[in-house]
């Protein structure tokens, strides 16, 4: 890396580039994957904050038994809105839409994704779907079905779910197109000399996720069409009074929505792999096993959906088979955790904010994953199903594992995306608060769930109050942590010091170009290493000295 390229003087970065459009249109009509990534980041975070508000209100309502701030109908709307917004607008598109769009081409040495216009169309579909969803959810009807839309309730409820379902349908298309784009990009756009098994593990994660998006998402589309037909024209598909079968709906719903859990989780695993390798100054332990386990999760994850239905009235044989299969998805997931920990072994460990967050995420995600075992075994699941235990389990996975890694990704790639550094001290304080908040918020729910507190309850028996109070206090800590980290990053964009091309000492290709990247990414065609995390000649002392020199030069040029 020559010193010259540490500053932005010799080229224009993708923010400064003039196109035929200007202002907002230069964003909304761009086909640059980086701009699309940034637009996703802004929209997704906006919707996340809306979903977070509903979470905050729900926890507040649960502070005391009986009505605390709202009535039962409103509470039911809250958890529906929270679930819908977080699942469909935030966590499913989440990491692939934001960091996938921005960094997939960079990690494989490409100028853009395979189909840039299709990529823009995905974003437009996302935006249309999202606004339709928000409009229908908040302004048109106080939808109260839960994000699962179980029939017959969703067919009968007085609240109008048609528009919301249309929104979910459109969002599904956005997801399919992104998946299609990423699969093609990984196969066709890799820089000369990079084999499939030389891609960074984040790219591997995006690739596996993209396959699930392409294969699983159409099923939710079809299911939505069937529900709409039934609601509008009285087709008897799901409604028993018309001769339909409500359990069929659950199958169709979970055939998509279980793999969707992996659409959310696998990219987060990818971020952990990249972050842990970078801050251990070491190649990921068992790279190939990691790549294959990512694929294995994608494939096995497709065959375990009915573990959500052990009490639904499906046959005992089906319950047994799905319980059996479910345990196999635990294996590649466990292998990943072991390999991350093994990567630390004999490394050179630097506890920057993304690394701290990744280590915290490994811990929290492990709790989420291990309690999945309780829910995979039939006899225990029958007790725990639809209780707070399940809420705790999947929030440990989603908040502890996935949101953690989304935020870790925001910190890790922040200098590349915006060209400046955030305040690391504040960021680390945020990570610690996040860790405490998540545990205080979700751990009491395991206990409540085991005691028998069902989920989606507006009110509860007095013996649960102590757990609810602790949990609500936890929600305040967690939300403060999230806001602290977001504000810190926001300040970093405007006030942060220039970051240079590679502030973390990372080895993947996105760090070989200036920050923020130029329009077509690479100034010279990069030459990939056979090992994407090639630290064989690394010495932390030499790296830090070079860093100091680079900082001086940047400061001189800027003054």
């Amino acid at each position, binding site marked *: 890396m020559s010193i010259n390229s540490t500053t932005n003087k010799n080229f224009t970065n993708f923010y400064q580039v003039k196109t035929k459009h200007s202002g907002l249109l230069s964003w909304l009509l761009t086909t640059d994957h980086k701009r699309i990534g940034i637009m996703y980041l802004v929209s997704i975070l906006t919707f996340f904050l809306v979903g977070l508000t509903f979470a905050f209100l729900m926890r507040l309502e649960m502070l005391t038994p009986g009505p605390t701030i709202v009535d039962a109908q409103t509470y039911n709307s809250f958890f529906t809105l929270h679930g819908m917004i977080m699942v469909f607008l935030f966590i499913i598109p989440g990491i692939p839409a934001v960091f996938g769009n921005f960094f997939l081409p960079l990690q494989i040495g490409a100028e853009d994704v395979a189909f840039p216009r299709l990529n823009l169309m995905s974003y437009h579909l996302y935006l249309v779907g999202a606004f339709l969803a928000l409009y229908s959810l908040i302004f048109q009807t106080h939808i*109260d079905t839960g994000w699962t839309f179980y029939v*017959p309730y969703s067919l009968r409820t007085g609240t109008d779910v048609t528009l919301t379902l249309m929104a979910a349908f459109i969002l599904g298309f956005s997801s399919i197109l992104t998946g299609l784009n990423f699969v093609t990009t990984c196969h066709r756009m890799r820089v000369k000399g990079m084999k499939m098994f030389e891609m960074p593990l984040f790219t591997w994660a995006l690739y596996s996720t993209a396959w699930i998006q392409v294969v699983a998402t159409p099923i939710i589309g079809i299911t939505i069409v069937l529900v709409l037909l039934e609601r509008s024209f009285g087709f008897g598909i799901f409604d028993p009074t018309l001769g339909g079968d*409500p359990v069929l709906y659950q199958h169709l719903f979970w055939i998509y929505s279980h793999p969707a859990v992996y659409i959310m989780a696998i990219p987060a695993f990818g971020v952990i792999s990249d972050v842990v390798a970078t801050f251990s*100054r070491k190649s990921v332990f068992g790279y190939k096993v990691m790549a294959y386990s990512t694929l294995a999760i994608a494939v096995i994850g497709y065959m375990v959906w009915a573990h959500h239905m052990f009490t639904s009235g499906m046959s005992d044989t089906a319950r047994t088979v799905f319980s059996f299969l479910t345990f196999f998805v635990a294996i590649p997931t466990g292998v990943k955790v072991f390999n991350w920990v093994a990567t630390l072994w004999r490394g050179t460990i630097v506890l920057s904010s993304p690394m701290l967050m990744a280590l915290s995420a490994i811990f929290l995600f*492990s709790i989420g994953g291990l309690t999945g075992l309780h829910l*995979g075994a039939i006899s225990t699941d029958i*007790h725990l199903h639809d209780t707070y235990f399940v809420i705790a389990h999947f929030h440990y996975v989603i908040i502890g594992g996935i949101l953690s890694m989304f935020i870790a990704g925001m910190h890790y790639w922040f200098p590349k995306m915006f060209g400046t550094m955030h305040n690391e001290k504040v960021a680390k304080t945020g990570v610690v608060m996040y860790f405490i908040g998540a545990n205080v918020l979700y751990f009491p729910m395991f206990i409540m769930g085991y005691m028998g507190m069902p989920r989606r309850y507006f009110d509860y*028996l007095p013996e649960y109050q102590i757990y609810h109070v602790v949990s609500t206090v936890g929600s305040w800590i967690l939300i403060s942590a999230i806001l602290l980290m977001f504000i810190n990053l926001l300040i970093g964009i405007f006030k942060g010091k220039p970051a240079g091309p590679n502030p973390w000492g990372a080895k993947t290709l996105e760090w070989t170009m200036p920050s923020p990247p130029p329009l077509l990414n690479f100034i010279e065609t990069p030459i990939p290493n056979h090992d994407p995390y090639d*630290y064989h000649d690394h*010495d932390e002392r030499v790296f830090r000295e070079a860093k100091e020199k680079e900082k001086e030069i940047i400061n001189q040029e800027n003054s």
Partner: protein
Amino acid sequence: MFEQTSKYVSTVDGAMLYITAFSVLMLLLITVAMIYFVIKYRASKNPIPTQYHGNIVIEVIWIVIPTIIVLSMFYYGYTDFSELRNTKEYDEEYFVTAKMWDWDFKYENGTITDTLYVPVNKTLKFNITSLDVLHSFYLPAFRIKEDAVPGRDGFIFITPLETGVYDIACAEYCGVNHWDMYKKLVVMEQDEYYAWVESQSKENKPEVTTSEEKTVESESTEMSENNEN
């Protein structure tokens, strides 16, 4: 943890304990290893990393051993469940009907009540269905639930070992009063229970023999009509 409300409860709690113990052990292992490595190999102490690309023997070990352990969990969960589901002989049978937002409990003699009365030390079968949307018949103290699906009959068995009053809850979201479907399961001494059943059937004698239209509980008339179809 170990309430002896039924034999099944202790097997479920046993499975719960087994899985939890394994989970805690794994979590400790992972956490202790992480903390140890982070301290021992911190950049200031270990500035030059040792490159190490993996080890196939280790990978095989940590694929095979967890596989065996989780399959034992599957087996544990499965045997308890299948033993319970394949109960062939039972002493009493009840018909549980869910509707928005209430339960009705019908006895073999046609009586319908709002609180579920059962005898202790007998094997009981509950047939569960719904009149409208999905509900779920949940007995937390007995570690068991089964969805109430309209147009279908689900069933569960319990064998209570102790008398007492237990909660019945709805565990499948069913609308605005989903939270308000708590009812009581009263486990009585056998002679007490049979005396009670006897008194109920006397009160209802004319109706019981002909149809199920009239019952002790008010407002359940409409219910039993629905039950017919």
